[in-house]
């Protein structure tokens, strides 16, 4: 069994076992089993990094066997510099999420843990799939566990949120399904991404395909104006669900742009890049402003996610190595930072049961250790140099200024808005006088929470201070992607 299969199926198989065997009367056993499974799943991913060849732009750890012969679908896996860190990020976040749920989830523990482990394996599958239909199957399969996670363990309005999540994202991806079938027929019966990337397509076909992919990925990212599901879902999802959603699921969409839109429809991508960049600028500026006025902490971070993902898509569609690398780095950084932000809100919510900013004030007086962490993550969220948030934003802004001065200016304004909404929230929640009795009686984080937050804090700091390991792996692959995207595929 190949290493990528191991990375995908270890969490799925162990998750299903936990699902099948666990009972609530043995909850603590289930928790340890889940932690063991998550750590094991993370460990099996590590060799991917250590054995990765930075100088090669081609797919590595490739596995290719026939899957459904009748439609010529293949179980074709591989990672390159673009997907490698996303795979590692996924398995890392799963460990953190399992720890975060430890005492918080007391009902149907096995289903909660099992769902996250299965989800983790499925998302890794999305990042590794090199067959169009395999990608689609993994991409859609993420909906089932997430739907259940939101609906079972969510907040008061969970049912609305679960439906909105499922139907909204399904709507987008069904159009992509039609596009995949069209490509299958056009390519003479192949679902292989490599074949599709070399397939000549007319301008009209490329435009239609581009927008079909756009429908699926823009909803998932989410880009303005199809971002409205995200705040609703984040508010209702349990802490772990929000963390995984923001840290990884949003990246599935952005990753799709790199794997499908740019290499398969390069001419349409160039033609419509202005639209994508315009929507990204709106996301960065307008949604950033929307975030400023939020009263609910989770909603605020959700809008901030939309703004940050705007940077990612903006970077992608400038077609420069700096922009695309910056977008990918921003994806990984946002994975760490947004997960951390949601876990911090979770820590507060577990104690006070409110997400309203107005319910807090002066938390630093009772929870000094926690506030130190929260402040670090807040700084990373507004892109302070030395934290993970800075690297990607800086690269994208550099690329944007090169591309067009005014877009660069608009993009860099986001740093100001980011600082505005994040720091204003920090000021109101953590500083100032103690506002009420609940805050007065808060207890600081325990060892488990300390450990969980320090895992993320280390990741955020390391990535901010020494981003080289993150950027080195992707250079070759990004250059190759740009090469592919710059060659016209119009039939002569």
């Amino acid at each position, binding site marked *: 069994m190949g290493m990528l299969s191991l990375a995908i199926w270890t969490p799925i198989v162990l998750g299903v076992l936990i699902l099948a065997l666990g009972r609530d009367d043995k909850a603590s056993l289930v928790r340890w089993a889940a932690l063991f499974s998550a750590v094991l799943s993370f460990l099996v991913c590590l060799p991917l990094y250590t054995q990765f060849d930075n100088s090669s732009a081609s797919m590595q750890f490739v596995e290719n066997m026939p899957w459904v012969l009748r439609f010529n679908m293949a179980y074709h896996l591989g990672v390159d510099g673009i997907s490698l860190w996303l795979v590692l990020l996924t398995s890392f976040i799963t460990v953190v999420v399992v720890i975060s749920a430890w005492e918080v989830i007391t009902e149907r523990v096995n289903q909660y843990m099992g769902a996250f482990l299965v989800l983790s394996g499925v998302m890794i599958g999305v990042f590794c799939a090199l067959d169009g239909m395999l990608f689609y199957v993994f991409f859609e399969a993420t909906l*089932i566990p997430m739907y259940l996670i939101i609906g079972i363990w969510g907040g008061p309005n969970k049912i609305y949120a679960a439906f909105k999540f499922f139907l909204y994202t399904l709507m987008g991806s069904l159009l992509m399904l039609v596009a995949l079938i069209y490509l299958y027929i056009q390519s003479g019966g192949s679902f292989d991404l490599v074949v599709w990337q070399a397939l000549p397509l007319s301008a009209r076909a490329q435009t239609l395909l581009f927008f079909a992919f756009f429908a699926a990925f823009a909803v998932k990212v989410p880009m303005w104006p199809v971002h409205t599901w995200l705040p609703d879902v984040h508010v209702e999802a349990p802490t772990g669900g929000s963390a995984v959603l923001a840290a990884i699921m949003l990246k599935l969409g952005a990753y799709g742009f790199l794997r499908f839109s740019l290499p398969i429809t390069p001419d349409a991508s160039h033609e419509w890049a202005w639209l994508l960049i315009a929507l990204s600028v709106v996301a960065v500026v307008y949604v950033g402003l929307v975030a400023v006025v939020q009263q609910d902490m989770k909603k605020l971070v959700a809008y901030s996610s939309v703004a940050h993902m705007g940077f990612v898509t903006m970077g992608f569609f400038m077609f420069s190595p700096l922009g695309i690398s910056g977008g990918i780095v921003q994806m990984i950084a946002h994975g760490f930072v947004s997960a951390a932000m949601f876990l911090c809100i979770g820590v507060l919510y577990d104690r006070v049961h409110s997400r309203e900013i107005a319910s807090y004030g002066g938390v630093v007086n009772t929870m000094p250790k926690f506030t130190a962490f929260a402040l670090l993550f807040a700084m990373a969220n507004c892109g302070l140099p030395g934290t993970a948030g800075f690297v990607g934003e800086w690269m994208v802004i550099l690329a944007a200024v090169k591309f067009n001065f005014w877009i660069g200016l608009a993009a860099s304004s986001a740093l100001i808005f980011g600082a505005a909404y994040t720091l204003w929230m920090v000021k109101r929640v953590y500083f100032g006088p103690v506002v009420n009795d609940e805050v007065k009686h808060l207890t600081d984080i325990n060892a488990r929470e300390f450990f969980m937050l320090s895992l993320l804090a280390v990741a955020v700091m390391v990535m901010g201070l020494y981003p080289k390991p993150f950027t080195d792996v992707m250079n070759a692959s990004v250059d190759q992607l740009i090469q592919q995207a710059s060659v016209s595929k119009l039939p002569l």
Partner: protein
Amino acid sequence: MIDNFSWVAVYPEIVLLIMACVIAMVDLWVTTPRRNLTYGLSMLTLASVAIIQALYASSGTTLYSFGNMVVSDAMGNWLKCFATLAVMVTFVYGRPYVADRQMLKGGEWYTLTLFALLGMFVMISGNNFLVIYLGLELLTLASYALVALRRDNGNATEAAMKYFVLGALASGFLLYGLSMLYGATGSLDLSTVFTAVATGHVKHQVLVLGVVFVVCGIAFKLGAAPFHMWVPDVYQGAPTAITLLIGGAPKLAAFAMMMRLLVDGLLPLAIDWQQMLMVLAVVTLLIGNLSAIAQTNLKRMLAFSTIAQMGFVLIGMLSGVVNGNTLSAANAYSSAMFYMISYVLTTLGVFGVILLLAKEGFESEEIADFAGLNSRSPLFAGVMAVCLFSLAGVPPLVGFFAKLSVIQALVATGQPAAVGLAIFAVAMSLVGAFYYLRVIKVMYFDPPLSVATVSAGADVRFVLALNGGLVLLLGLLPGGLMALCANAVVQALGS
């Protein structure tokens, strides 16, 4: 004059007929409510028939018999094999339900079901208008009686009445259409009709008039809109064990009937009936999906969902011939066959769970009755959720690949109208996702109304887990079943 005469082709039918009669007699001496002897004998019969069919099917030979009245080919044998397995599963799920109920606990449930299965076999094997019609009548007569078994219940009696009246009307349509075709071509034999039509010497108007009635009759039997009126009433009114039977195996026979009549017999007229099927498919998808949203009764909702699913089967059937070219026919019809088989597998799981939750005096038919099922029985809720996600077409479950293959066949025709229909079908499956999700929501997100745990025998739990597992496994590895359908259809077309 009978020029070929081989008993081998009809061994399974003979075994089934003899055993159905024997079981009907033996059952007179059985008194226990669980009817172990009847049940055991029925299962034994079905198992041996299923094995014979599987052996026939895997040998891959095509055998005509009784002067080409019946045919035993791979497609028919596989369909018969799956129909038999579906009936076995029906018996396993239905036995506790039937044993608990006054009107149902006689042996009639077993014997009538065996006769219904015999009817399906004849329908599937028929290579002659009349033989197919006879099989259909045997199946429907047994079904009318089964629906009416709970004769003290108003709903069941009404359902039986509606089923009978509309079913008789549909049979009339079919028979009228067949007689037109007989009048025009002078033969009841499918291959002779095929040749006669293909020469082009037969008056086209008469043929098309006949085809209209045949298509109407088939649409009635499939439950395609606008001939779907009986489906919701019968599904809701019939005792659940009988709904399970009607919703499962007969769909395979209906598919075979469609293949035999439209493809084996009338393929040269494809350009005419494909247009009819396209209209039917659009109306069926629309009415099925939109009506299902409004239902509060789960059985009724599933009836409308069945109607919607039949729309997808029709999509597979109408993509076979493009501009008179039959190159993609095998692809299209095998996708429809795959769709039908995976649909039956999934439906068995869904109705099985409904059946097992029903208690004496409590039918558990409303969607609200499933509230909090997950905390009462994770296994039942899990199987139900897997099946519903599959019906909604979410990967990695078998329903997704079923929808994929029919839509792929449709898009492959390359017609602008076909692409439009594909997008419409995809949009309708989004509507469909909503009502399936609503049931999952009730099971997983709502608090339970009662804390009573759900119990079922070990055999039932095992089969149910197997059923749900297969829906998942065939979703992960659909290649085998797809290849089976493709080979079977290629053979059926080639002969």
